[in-house]
């Protein structure tokens, strides 16, 4: 049923993504692709995978931006995936009941056996979290690794989303945002974690931790001149001759 769950357990699972330490290595995207190619949403089809224009389904896209100008500017690597919103219009627009939000943990999922591939949910998502699988004719999206986090066949330490487990800089944190003592809640409170496009009113569960302002480096080298002229000696003489 595409109505939002009326009863919830008060658990809101999601990710806190640290833009300060993310190095844009795409490991989360690759690990996600690897796990989900064999998991709940499998396969994640690639069209023309070895050709000139490969085009495939990925649940994680790693953008890089510049923000600000000149010496105050920042380069920020920005992983983008499903935010498992509290008000997910992608769920309520679904005409078939294939899209749903789980009452027990807030994860937004697609029941692919009911999806007609009308793509309306992908239009309703402001964040571009859903990607259509052309080969299968159904919509796919991040499952928050629902087939890992409760999987008793895995060692307990591995019961976290694949993207979180693989991150080499520990920039992705998984937990319950409704529990004020969880690591993600404390990180969000401490670092000023924020929502993407809050004006859309979707109330995303995932939070982004902003990059920290870098203090100016003491004793930094002066900027290199565009074309330094030799100061003295033979090279200065040669420079003058050639400059005529």
């Amino acid at each position, binding site marked *: *049923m*595409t*109505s939002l769950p009326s009863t919830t357990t008060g658990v809101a699972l999601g990710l806190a993504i640290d*833009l300060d330490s993310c190095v*844009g290595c795409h490991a989360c*995207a690759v690990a996600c692709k690897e796990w989900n190619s064999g998991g709940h949403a499998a396969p994640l089809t690639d069209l023309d995978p070895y050709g*000139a*224009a490969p*085009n495939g389904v990925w649940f994680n*896209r790693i*953008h*890089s*931006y*510049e*923000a*600000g*100008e000149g010496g*105050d*500017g920042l*380069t920020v690597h*920005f992983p*983008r995936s499903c935010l498992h919103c509290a008000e997910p*219009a992608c*769920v*309520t*627009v*679904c*005409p*078939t*009941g*294939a899209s749903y939000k789980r009452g027990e943990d807030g994860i937004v999922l697609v029941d692919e056996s009911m*999806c*007609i*591939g*009308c793509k*309306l949910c*992908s*239009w*309703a*998502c*402001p*964040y*571009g979290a859903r*990607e*259509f699988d*052309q080969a*299968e*004719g*159904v919509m796919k999206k991040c499952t928050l690794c629902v087939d890992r986090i409760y999987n008793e066949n895995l060692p307990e330490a591995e019961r976290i989303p694949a993207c979180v487990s693989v991150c080499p800089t520990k920039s992705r944190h998984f937990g319950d945002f409704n529990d004020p003592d969880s690591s993600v809640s404390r990180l969000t409170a401490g670092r000023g974690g*924020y*929502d*993407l*496009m*809050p*004006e*859309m*009113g979707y109330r995303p569960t995932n939070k*982004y931790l*902003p*990059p920290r302002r870098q203090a100016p480096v003491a004793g930094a080298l002066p900027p290199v001149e565009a074309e330094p002229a030799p100061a003295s000696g033979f090279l200065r003489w040669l420079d003058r001759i050639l400059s005529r």
Partner: protein
Amino acid sequence: MHPAYSVILFTTASGTGYGLLAFAALFSLLGRLPGDAWFLGGLVALALALIAGGLLSSTFHLGRPERAWRAFSQWRTSWLSREGVLACLSFPVALGFAAGRIFGLAGTAGLAVATIAISIATVATTAMIYASLRPIRHWHHPLVPLGYVVFAGQAGAAWLQMWQALWGRADPMVTAAAVLLPAVGLIVKLAYWRAVDTGRAASTAETATGLGRFGRVRPLDPPHTSANYLLNEMGYRVARRHAAKLRGYALALAFVVPSMLSAVALVGSPGLAATAAVVAAAAMSLGLVVERWLFFAEARHSVTLYYDAQPV
């Protein structure tokens, strides 16, 4: 947004069908259409054929058309589901009205009113599929549902005038509707274009990334080197100069030309008026296809902020 031909055809054809159905019921109610089996039966059959053709066309863009029946289940939350339910209900209502009128049964007036109501409601729910989507500023606007209903009405009036002309009939009230409704449609469309051209989205690359606190945000490295579903579906862009030209064609073909041609019935000979009515209906349908193509092609989705940081 990618302008899918199946959806353009669906919204224009079913809109015309519902406009035709609503006017067939309205003018029957006013006693201005004959209850003749061929005339009225043919008229309702034409309207239902346009609607059925449109609905069938809409299933072509589905990834799994064989599961389309599931789309009737979520009418509590989904405008697409509501539209499907109303569209299916409209068939028995319209057929009941047509049968009642042709065979002179009691209760036909009630069915005529129901036909008008369900026709308007179905077109409005079609529009709400688009108007309910907050990430697309060009669609999330009150003039969108109003436009869909008015354009369906003007197409219905033009097609009814054509249908009458083909039977060698004419009615000043139908002519009045065919002349005046495109004028209303013109005002709605111009107001809509003015609104979307001058409006600004609340969302920007700065709010989409939350990095506005550091200054202007612009993309440095793309997340992938070739296209993906998001860029193909949501990243469609029509060149500004083409859009301006196409807006001109839409204005002329959908509104100005058909209104003037429909007015020929007021002054010209019956033969000339009939020819003008046929050309008017054809021009309007072509114009509305252009209008609907632009409705999709000019719409910008907030996900494109992540890719090109250009205002939506």
